[in-house]
């Protein structure tokens, strides 16, 4: 069993409309790496040129904020990652 990554609505254009994708990895970073290898367009939506997460990206691991050091957080089979984005409208 692998890790389920829930894709934010604004990013589903890069995942062929998929709302959730199963990936393998030992850390959040490895999981996102697997994800962006499969869906390369997603990489520029999530990461900046220095390969760090963009400011507006939020990562939740098992419904809990993974910030800070999101990419280093360990994951185990059956865990769930949510990628969301900061909202600013009012």
């Amino acid at each position, binding site marked *: 069993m692998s890790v389920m990554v829930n894709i934010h609505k604004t990013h589903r254009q890069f995942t062929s409309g998929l709302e959730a994708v199963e990936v393998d990895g030992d850390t959040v970073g490895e999981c996102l790496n697997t994800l962006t290898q499969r869906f390369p367009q997603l990489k520029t939506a999530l990461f900046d040129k220095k390969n760090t997460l963009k400011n507006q990206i939020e990562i939740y691991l098992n419904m809990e904020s993974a910030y*800070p050091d999101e990419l280093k957080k360990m994951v185990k089979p059956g865990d769930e990652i949510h990628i969301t984005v900061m*909202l*600013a*409208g009012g």
Partner: protein
Amino acid sequence: MIPILSSDELKRYDRQILIHEIGVAGQEKLKKASVLICGAGGLGSPAAIYLAAAGVGAITLIDYDQVALSNLNRQILHGEADIGRWKVDSAKEKLGKLNSHLILRTSTVRITDENAGEWAAGHDVIIDALDNLATRYALNKTAQEMGVPFIHGAVNGFEGRALTVIPGQSACLRCLHRSAAPETGKFPVIGVTPALIGVIQATEAIKYLTGIGELLADRLVVYDGLKAKWSEFRVKKNPECEHCGRPPERKTP
């Protein structure tokens, strides 16, 4: 002793006084309360309307903008006849008609890092009904420094979110992010989304002011209107947060 609530007010708020958790004591707390609402737009409209209707004694409403035609799909304090007026003037007229007991102060000031403290002073709660992150951060920081609860709300399209920040106790807005995201300008939105989120913010304010229920402290709720689904994410204080973390001089080496 002069009663806090008049017989007219007791009648007016009868249905909510019937709520066991509120009662006359809770209603009196609402009357004595002062709420700062920053933004008289999509979030601020429903938040202000429902707080005024609920009998909050004093509201300060701040917005530096004027009503435009494209605001009317969501900013329900304003109508066609208000186009070109200051939003706070339009709001004052509507809220005054809704509840003559309300003491409403308004301003067209633009909230900045420098003046946020001056405006937050004297309020029991701050409602973040803004439309940009920079001002949200200024207000969030001030709220932490002054110890005033800060009720965050934000929307985009059919998606919205809310978080209540209790200074010194729960995660603040700055604890969630490494930095503000770049402003994207005009954001898509349909009125039902800020309607829901603004009313959640008003609900949080009522709960805090009356001391009842469980707040959205350390709980970020995210609403997806298209899926009619709520998600709740646990957030936590960041000890290194530049708005609410320990001051550097108190950090252990």
